[in-house]
């Protein structure tokens, strides 16, 4: 992509856009801000690549860029109460009655998890990142990342159980 291959840029964008958008949503919990973060990350990547400085670890670069920008924005804005947050982290596949029925409940449960647990659950479940990579992003140990994942799953399970599931 170095020095002007816009087709390669579009391919990269198509490959990562949905994942990075969901990741940003899960962190910053605002549709508008998540879109701005994804936009800024890809425009930043295009500028770097056009100057001949393509990141060596592209996936890590993109995830960390999203995280850093979200953290930066969250420092500057007050946290919204959950009732004011209306966004979807997950979408049920058409025709899957069980998932369609549970989507709202699980979505709300994901949003009520502590931020660091929700982050591990999202990155592990839908992005297939290794615990070592997630731990590196969170600046913690692999064991802590694993515990956060297990606590997160446990809370989701309890939430489903509380609703007779």
């Amino acid at each position, binding site marked *: *992509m170095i020095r*002007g291959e816009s087709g390669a*840029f579009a391919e990269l964008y198509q490959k990562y856009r949905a994942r990075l958008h969901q990741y940003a*949503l899960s962190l910053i919990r605002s549709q508008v801000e998540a879109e701005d973060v994804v*936009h800024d990350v890809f425009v930043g990547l295009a*500028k770097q690549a056009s100057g001949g400085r393509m990141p060596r670890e592209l996936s890590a670069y993109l995830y*960390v860029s999203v995280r850093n920008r979200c953290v930066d924005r969250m420092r500057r804005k007050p946290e919204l109460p959950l009732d004011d947050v209306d966004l979807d982290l997950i979408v049920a596949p058409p025709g899957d009655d*069980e998932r369609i029925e549970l989507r709202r409940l699980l979505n709300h449960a994901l949003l009520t998890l502590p931020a660091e647990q929700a982050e591990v659950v999202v990155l592990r479940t839908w992005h297939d990142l290794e615990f070592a990579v997630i731990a590196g992003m969170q600046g913690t140990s692999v064991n802590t990342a694993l515990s956060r994942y297990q606590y997160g*799953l446990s809370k*989701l399970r309890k939430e489903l159980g509380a609703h007779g599931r």
Partner: protein
Amino acid sequence: MDDDRIERLLKGYRLPDVARDLDQRVLREGAAIMARARDRATVEDVGRSLLQGLGFGYLAWLFDFVTTTDAEYRVEFI
């Protein structure tokens, strides 16, 4: 419900759709940045050829030597 069951249940969900407006914004701006880079590279090539033709090829080599940067990129955690 055990951990395996909830993991399978969660993995069956799709990621939310990305707004078309965001796609258009990113691709348009990315393409513009790439086009500028291509133009810059073309101008550099012409300049380099001109210097070669005039017998000052060493100046182009010297310019590249001074301005080439290491492509390595460092990821910073904040």
